[in-house]
């Protein structure tokens, strides 16, 4: 029986010729502009803006998750705890403390980061499946807390969250004002992840993912790097969750439930683990599917399961991964 090291996670295989960094940067710039144009243009051609905002929030969530999985090599089963807890904090801050939306969202993201700091300290000590199970256990504890704590509203959630006035000036109840705000957060978060991945920190992270003992022998403190990646991933996931709570004006138990942790894995897998644009595409696919198949009720679960199975068996690289493989570029 094969005993593959459980801590290495296969990502986009290196069949692409090592393109020069300028080449790669240009491809990325083009892809980024295309992506931004799609998100800017969609509501103008009649796509329901709230739907696009939902896609953006989940895309950011999936990108944050992919930072940890695709680049850090760590599979977390509990990422919903960051999405959901940030949502509760930002909803509470906006509704009860009356903070303006950008402050509420910032608070949410920071709290998720703090939670990530603690969770990371506990989880990083272990590898592979044990790491995943600890994150799952911690997420279940967060779920329990969300269920019992009075301020989260139990299964009612926190409802009637005001959209508020951005910077105290721009009324966000109108989707025309809300959309650019969410777009800015999404593109900003995406660019931040891009910078992290292409920075010296990101390179060391990749080295640790590929061959941890060697990285350690070169003098890098692997645990510290993994922990930092964990905190960054948690904060960005929190940013997504906090924004989502303001967009939908609701924070609920769905966002801390373990099935949400499963969904983000699916989005990343479908889009392409270890690619930059993969999680965005994956999120768009999964959210669209849930939206348009909603009237079919339980068939959505079946379709999601089938996609999981097909991706694992046949399309391991995911959509963007396959495209990248065909074009011999890394996306």
């Amino acid at each position, binding site marked *: 029986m094969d005993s593959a090291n459980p801590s290495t996670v296969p990502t986009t295989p290196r069949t692409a010729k090592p393109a020069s960094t300028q080449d790669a940067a240009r491809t990325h710039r083009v892809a980024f502009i295309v992506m931004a144009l799609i998100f800017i243009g969609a509501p103008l051609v009649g796509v329901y803006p709230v739907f696009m905002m939902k896609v953006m929030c989940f895309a950011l969530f999936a990108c944050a998750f992919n930072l940890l999985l695709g680049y850090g090599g760590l599979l977390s089963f509990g990422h919903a705890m960051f999405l959901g807890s940030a949502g509760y904090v930002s909803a509470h801050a906006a509704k009860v403390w009356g903070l303006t939306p950008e402050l509420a969202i910032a608070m949410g993201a920071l709290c998720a980061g703090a939670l990530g700091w603690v969770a990371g300290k506990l989880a990083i000590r*272990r590898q592979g*499946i044990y790491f995943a*199970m600890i994150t799952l*256990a911690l997420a279940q504890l967060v779920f329990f807390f969300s269920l019992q704590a009075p301020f989260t509203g139990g299964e009612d959630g926190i409802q009637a969250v005001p959209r508020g006035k951005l910077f105290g000036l721009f009324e966000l109840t109108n989707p025309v004002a809300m959309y650019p705000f969410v777009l800015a957060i999404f593109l900003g978060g995406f660019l931040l992840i891009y910078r992290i991945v292409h920075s010296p920190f990101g390179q060391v992270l990749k080295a640790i993912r590929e061959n941890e003992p060697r990285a350690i022998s070169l003098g890098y403190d692997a645990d510290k790097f993994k922990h930092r990646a964990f905190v960054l991933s948690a904060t960005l996931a929190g940013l997504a969750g906090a924004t989502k709570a303001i967009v939908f004006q609701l924070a609920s138990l769905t966002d801390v439930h373990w099935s949400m942790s499963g969904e983000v894995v699916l989005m990343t897998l479908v889009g392409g683990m270890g690619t930059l644009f993969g999680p965005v595409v994956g999120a768009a696919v999964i959210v669209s599917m849930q939206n348009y198949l909603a009237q079919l*009720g339980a068939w959505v679960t079946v379709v999601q*399961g089938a996609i999981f199975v097909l991706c694992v068996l046949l399309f391991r690289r995911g959509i963007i991964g396959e495209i990248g493989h065909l074009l011999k570029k890394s996306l």
Partner: protein
Amino acid sequence: MEIFGIPIQAMMGQLLIGLINGSFYALLSLGLAVIFGLLNIINFAHGAQYMLGAFGAYLLLNKLGLGYWGSLLVAPILVGATGVVIERTMLKPLYKLDHLYGLLLTFGLALIIQGLFRNEYGSTGLPYAIPKALQGGQNLGFMFLPNYRAWVIVASLVVCLSTWFVIEKTRLGGYLRAATENPQLVQAFGINVPRMITLTYGFGVALAALAGVMAAPIYQVSPQMGENLIIVVFAVVVIGGMGSIMGAIVTGFGLGLIEGLTKVFYPEASTTVIFVIMTIVLLIRPAGLFGAQK
């Protein structure tokens, strides 16, 4: 006489009920431990296969008129056969890859199975009667123990201990354990390793289905019955030590008892206490209580 404000009579009743629930945890974690411990496959479809066992019993009764005792034998065999097919067609190609893929595949399969049954049967849950021979109960003084629940404890113990015995103490078990550690060598000795692996996966799945048949008369037979159970069972296996059969059994029963006590003192937390324990255990003994440090 009271312990922490609970009369000892009531406490004993709660512990007994805890033991009953522990029997299901033990039976389910046994199958999962066999599959992970020996085959290194993280079988996320275990909960769905448990549900299939319960539905198997229900359908066998309503379509073929086969009662409980017959279903105890037939349903696990049928579900185990589907397990064999899954292993042959879908799991085999993934062995050379990271465990992650096996996990994702079985997770996807669980979603498909649960979704299909949800579509067909709705969510309300279907009734399945307790077999006549086991109806009624015994008045033990401190509580009224239904006969069927007593049967569950006994049957579970028997199955768990015999499985443990076969794997740890017999020649067949020895071949199996050797094959998972060094397949090429064992194959060289003339033993058909791939077939043994397939059958072992099938056996683990059959254990899940057996638990399902036994659960049918007490819990409602519904498509989501395995959903919330699966993460608890994983927690049990991880705490017991992945790969340790005895660890899974002991932890299964132990968890039932601890959960039972939690239901008395802090019932709201009874579904969460397992995760607290898992976090603590993994921090102190990373390989689980009975696991071997690999």
